[in-house]
């Protein structure tokens, strides 16, 4: 496996100690040895990756430097469109679909010289918290192959943890980057809404979706973010103002930083090991000079309910286009309506169907105000809660997930238990704020525990400042053990 950070690999690439092709070979070899057990990837673009790596080596020889990701093997969640490379969103309905264009994030990665290794597994259309909802099979956790990697970006998280990529990109609608990062012991970050273009990201819930990076270190996270964010004229919700420098706060420490521990994100449903590790980290931050206080954000208790009205509502509309008429799966029928309903009935899995039904219902005449309308009011109240909290503190912290990685199959029969996996992460999606999960240790069973740092909109600088200190204090740099033999 590639046992280095992006910044370290980049230094070696530029000094000639390694080549992009050799880095890629290591990544592909790792994938070759681990994929049978992990199933992190849906598609490996070996040929495309070889060409990109060879080009990167030629660039370095010519003194061309395209930035921190130049020559670095990266993986993409399979809900980002890649021109001519199969993109399925892990759904049967998009089996064999070859997009005619690259997502903006993909274009930026390619123009930054990144080597795209392949497309990673996810819960179908990013709906889920375990990557068990993929139409193409489950991804497993590299720390314990009987357990889930989290989701929905479970393939990206598992790939970075296993070392078949140095960075991977996922999408986070309710925690789909941070929760799997937490369960797989890697760094996962969701940027401020609007800072990373959604053009070419197969939409789940447009007002919540945001692409972000998985990396092994906090510094790498900031570098990977810089490679993909920035205003995009193809996305009307893209932020057009000044962007902060996420690397600015790295290594600055937390002396005098006001940190608020969210009181609502503890207690019932939270595993003791998670609470203990979180408490210990908060104490360490205080020892490192931070002003720590407990902050209450009462609306967090109803955030999950609001989320499960808003996200399915938008999804019900976003997924309407998959009808068998123009692309993807088509199941014939004697009328257009029959063709559409048969295609959709066969093409969508149970969780996607459930959310489409939920969303259709909550937008229906007579129910709109009680459901969707009410959820939007809750969303506004959450934003106000955050605003109040950020008058007292600079960043908010909490566990990323109430539990460590759970057994595969443990929650598939109980959607509500599965939905609770995202209780800590959802508020930042509803507010559009940045948040990051940093691994801080292992529980007694050797499973990773993540720690979440949240910041106000465009507060990436202070968020990374705190996250870097969390990483430093945790001293976590252990590789997954479950597939050690294969590695």
């Amino acid at each position: 496996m590639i046992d280095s950070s992006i910044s370290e690999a980049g230094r070696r690439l530029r000094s000639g100690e390694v080549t992009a092709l050799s880095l890629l070979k290591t990544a592909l070899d790792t994938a070759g040895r681990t994929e049978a057990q992990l199933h992190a990837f849906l598609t490996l673009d070996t040929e495309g990756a070889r060409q990109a790596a060879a080009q990167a080596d030629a660039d370095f020889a010519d003194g061309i430097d395209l930035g921190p990701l130049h020559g670095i093997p990266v993986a993409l969640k399979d809900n980002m469109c890649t021109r001519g490379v199969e993109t399925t969103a892990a759904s049967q309905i998009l089996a064999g679909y070859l997009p005619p264009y690259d997502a903006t994030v993909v274009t930026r990665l390619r123009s930054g010289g990144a080597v795209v290794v392949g497309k990673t597994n996810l819960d179908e259309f990013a709906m889920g918290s375990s990557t068990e909802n993929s139409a193409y099979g489950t991804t497993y956790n590299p720390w314990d192959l009987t357990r889930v990697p989290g989701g929905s970006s479970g393939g990206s998280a598992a790939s970075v943890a296993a070392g078949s990529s140095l960075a991977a990109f996922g999408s986070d609608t309710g925690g789909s980057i941070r929760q799997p990062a937490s369960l797989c012991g890697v760094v996962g970050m969701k940027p401020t809404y609007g800072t990373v273009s959604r053009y070419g990201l197969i939409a789940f819930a447009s007002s919540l979706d945001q692409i972000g990076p998985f990396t092994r270190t906090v510094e790498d996270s900031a570098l990977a973010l810089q490679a993909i964010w920035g205003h995009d004229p193809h996305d009307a919700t893209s932020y057009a103002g000044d962007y902060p420098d996420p690397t600015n706060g790295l290594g600055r420490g937390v002396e005098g930083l006001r940190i608020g521990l969210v009181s609502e994100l503890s207690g019932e449903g939270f595993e003791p090991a998670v609470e203990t590790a979180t408490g210990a980290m908060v104490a360490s931050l205080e020892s490192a000079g931070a002003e720590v206080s407990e902050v209450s954000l009462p609306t967090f208790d109803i955030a999950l309910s609001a989320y499960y009205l808003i996200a399915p509502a938008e999804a019900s509309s976003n997924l309407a286009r998959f009808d068998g008429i123009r692309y993807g799966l088509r199941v014939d029928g004697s009328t257009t309506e029959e063709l559409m309903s048969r295609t959709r009935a066969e093409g969508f899995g149970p969780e996607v169907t459930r959310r489409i039904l939920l969303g259709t219902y909550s937008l229906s005449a007579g129910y709109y105000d009680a459901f969707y309308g009410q959820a939007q009011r809750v969303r506004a109240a959450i934003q106000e809660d955050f605003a109040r909290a950020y008058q007292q503190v600079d960043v908010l912290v909490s566990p990323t997930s109430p539990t460590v990685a759970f057994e595969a199959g443990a929650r598939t029969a109980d959607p509500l238990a599965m939905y609770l996996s995202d209780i800590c992460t959802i508020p930042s999606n509803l507010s559009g704020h940045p948040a990051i999960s940093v691994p801080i240790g292992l529980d007694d069973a050797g499973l990773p525990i993540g720690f979440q740092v949240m910041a106000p909109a465009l507060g990436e600088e202070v968020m990374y400042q705190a996250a870097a200190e969390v990483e430093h204090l945790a001293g976590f740099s252990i590789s997954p053990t479950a597939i050690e033999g294969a590695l």
Partner: protein
Amino acid sequence: MSWEPVIGIEVHVELMTNSKMFCGCAVAFGAEPNTRTCPTCLGLPGALPVPNKVAIESIMSIGLALNCQVSPRSVFHRKNYFYADLPKNYQISQFDVPVCHDGYLDVEVDGETRRVGIERAHMEEDTGKSMHLGAGGRIHAAEGTLLDFNRSGVPLVEIVSRPDIRGAVESRAYAQQLRSVVAELGVSDARLEEGSIRFDANVSIRPEGEELLGTKVEIKNMNSFRSLERAVDFEIGRQIDLVESGGLVVQETRHWDEEAGVTHSMRTKEGSSDYRYFTEPDLVPMVMDEEWVDEVRGRLPELPADRRRRYEQQGLDRQGAGVLSGMDAELRAIYEEAVRSGAPAKAAATWLTGEVIGWARKHKVESSALLLDGAGLAELIEMVDEGLVSSSAAKEVLDGVLSGGGAPGVVAKDHDLLQMKDRDALEAAVDQVVAAHPGAVEGFRQGEEKVVGFLVGQVMKATQGKADPRAVNQILRAKLSE
């Protein structure tokens, strides 16, 4: 019982912007199918909409021309329904905060002005087109359907009137007036035959004097102003017959059958009636601040109603002003220039709306290709006024000018159409006629007035019509009274 028809009209106007509403694809009528498409207007996974600023300015100008308020902040909504030519299976449209609202349009009906309220004008995107193969283009029993997405995403403005229209003729007048406003603004082709302007009518009836509205029926598929008028007329009659024979009007959509001249209930349900509107999360609210609205207002051309008022102030009567203000820009430009060159407004308008249009129709010449400018028209009118040409000769001069013979003065000279103004020559001609018709002269002396006309006619004949009849009359009377 006497019944009052109550009609509201919804008009869809396809805008003539360079690119589509939410992507950079060209707006082009008649292009090869599916050649004006991209991921966004095809609804491909991951594609996103970005609004077209010119389209928003176009709807603002339509709203301002219809005396609407422009909302300071307006929001796009998704209208969800499944249809094969709607690629996303939702249409980006507007719901509770349209760009424009609360305006009116004054419509002339039988010489009276009727004010029709405009409830709203909102922005949306057009759908693609389905072409059903076989079965005479109908969806039932079609062998297959082809889809063309060139039109998908073309900006569309929907203008919804209040139920202020009271009859079929008025419906037609409203639609025509609205079309002329849109055409004047230059924001749309406004061609009915190409579907760039389309009408639906909501028709209901109620007993005369009743305040409450009756059950409305929506009628679709009217392809011309005439078919709009016929369809509304038919539907009013159908509803009255139905109610008077003890039936009830049901709320439904009916299809106008142009050939049969009747409306049919539409049995095919186009999607669900619950469109599950919600705010389009891929777009941010549009902010139309005062500065922007004023800028758009400042660029508005003169509208037909304003122009008609101005023409009346220039001296045209109401009807003449109405006719002229509805004419092609090219013809109006000739009028404007003629008036600037000193021609009396009334004469200039009469010539244009009579002789000039008649000539253009007869010779099938577009008004933009007419070889007459305002200075030429003014010259012609002046020649008539000064008696240089007779009014009948003036028509010949006009024909010569329009046929490429040059300025009126040149044509009149070349064709020998100038009137004889030389007193001596006229007197000589009169003398000859008097000498040649002693019987008539005797008759005059006996008090027969009518022989004057005969003798004038003889002089005109002798001079091949070039003599000024007024002068001839004067000279003749003087001579006869000697």
